[in-house]
């Protein structure tokens, strides 16, 4: 093999000239971007602090003393959100892969399963999450005998989240399964692999790779929706903030809880962007558009 060491070659004067021009253009666009951002932020800030009620809003929403006071309780609640998120993610992954696989089954024998899976995704993609939370959170305990120990509302909230999100995520998986080229299935079946083994060994691994950015996006959405379990009375970050707000007559605890959710989501959002950009770069090797 002949080696082509790109770094060993000295670029021509034409290329050096082009690079200099590109560098100047680049510096110019960065400067324009910085100046316009600072100007915009300054104008927005000026407008805000000159509104007639700004002083009151600042005191009731952005009070540092109230924030420090509320933080420990809100943080404790936030830990409950993290636990719910952990179990909900596992539940969603398992249930949605099962639903997506069932929806791709062929043959009349599987019609009832297919119909149930299709009906499930239709129903739960249409139902607002908050209604699912109420139905599960207050409906399931209603089935219990009066003396029974109550199921914790965090558990019921997790179930409601799994039900709703699995309906969405299973459609993402189904899109991924259908995006795997039929020739892959053909090759697997021609080797004698059964339908099930073809799915497990050939189709699903490729499908998951194809839909990873979309899955990560749904995960980010779920990270903040775990805050909705507060409507069932579970003392999570949102509920803790509500309690603190009621005690301090000040809305700052909500802002604190909001910041915690944003901080939780940021790494995942960045990771999703990075991964999507990497996939795009790999698919468009050499392209500049």
């Amino acid at each position, binding site marked *: 093999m002949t080696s082509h060491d790109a770094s060993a070659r000295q670029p021509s004067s034409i290329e050096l000239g082009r690079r200099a021009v590109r560098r100047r253009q680049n510096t110019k666009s960065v400067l324009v971007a910085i100046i316009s951002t600072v100007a915009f932020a300054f104008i927005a800030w000026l407008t805000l602090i000159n509104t007639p009620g700004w002083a009151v809003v600042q005191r009731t929403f952005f009070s540092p003393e109230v924030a420090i006071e509320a933080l420990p309780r809100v943080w404790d609640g936030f830990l409950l959100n993290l636990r719910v998120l952990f179990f909900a993610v596992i539940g969603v992954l398992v249930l949605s892969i099962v639903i997506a696989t069932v929806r791709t089954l062929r043959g009349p024998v599987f019609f009832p399963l297919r119909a149930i899976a299709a009906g499930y995704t239709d129903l739960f993609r249409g139902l607002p999450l908050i209604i699912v939370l109420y139905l599960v959170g207050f409906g399931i305990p209603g089935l219990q005998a009066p003396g029974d120990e109550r199921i914790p509302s965090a558990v019921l909230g997790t179930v409601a989240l799994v039900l709703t999100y699995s309906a969405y995520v299973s459609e993402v998986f189904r899109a991924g399964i259908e995006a795997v080229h039929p*020739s*892959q299935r*053909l*090759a*697997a*079946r*021609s*080797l*004698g*692999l*059964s339908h099930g*083994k073809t799915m497990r*060994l*050939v189709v699903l*691994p*490729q499908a998951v*790779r194809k839909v990873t950015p979309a899955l990560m996006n749904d995960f980010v959405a779920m990270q903040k929706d775990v805050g909705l379990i507060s409507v069932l009375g579970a003392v999570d970050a949102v509920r803790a903030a509500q309690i603190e707000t009621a005690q301090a007559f000040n809305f700052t605890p909500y802002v604190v809880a909001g910041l915690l959710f944003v901080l939780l989501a940021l790494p995942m959002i960045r990771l999703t962007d990075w991964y999507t950009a990497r996939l795009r770069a790999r698919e468009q090797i050499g392209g500049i558009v």
Partner: protein
Amino acid sequence: MSETVLRLEGVHKSFGETAVLQGIDLTVSSHEVVALIGASGSGKSTLLRTINLLERLDDGQIWLRDVDITDPQIKHDAVRARIGVVFQSFNLFPHLSVLDNVTLASRHVLGVDRGAAEARGRELLSRIGLADQAKSFPDRLSGGQQQRAAIVRAIATNPELLLLDEITSALDPELVTEVLDLVRELKADGTTIIMATHEMAFARDVADRVVFLDRGIIVEEGPPSQVFGSPREARTREFLGRFTAG
């Protein structure tokens, strides 16, 4: 005396209104190499796919050894495991290493344990000079290497019959030879092969029998010297004439 591996009788297949196979009778003996030639759309690929039960027949029967594989009660996966297929577009699994591609059927269809399957896989890969690529992924290989890996994947389970569906049509001309050389080796090993091909020189050189398909029927068949040298049928002459002229 060689025995019959495959026998087709009156095989019909249509896609909607288009009749693709209109009564195919064909017998293939063990260690025989049969070349299917014919224009695009003549039914070569469909014929190979019906043999491997990847398409359902509209009529007729196919026997593998003495089993009627068109019997609806037959286990399709078990039949497919006895027949190897190589496709025009390789169809290697992009998420698996070359070695995992080659050992997939042994491990998950025949139930061979990982160690034994990988030993055999590595041996096959070293035969085609890809031993040091065993852990690479298919997209790191050239087209010719991918197709040779696909052939090795198809023969890893020692199938009784190997179907090659225009396996050089998607390759750059300089890569065709390495793939055809491997087919020559397989013939020398005594593999029973049915191949659809546009490589007339290769068919002439390697095939024991050449079958010319046109519009879903076998127009003419015989030893290559006869079919290429002195074709009996006008349609065969016309088809071959287009090849030598083009």
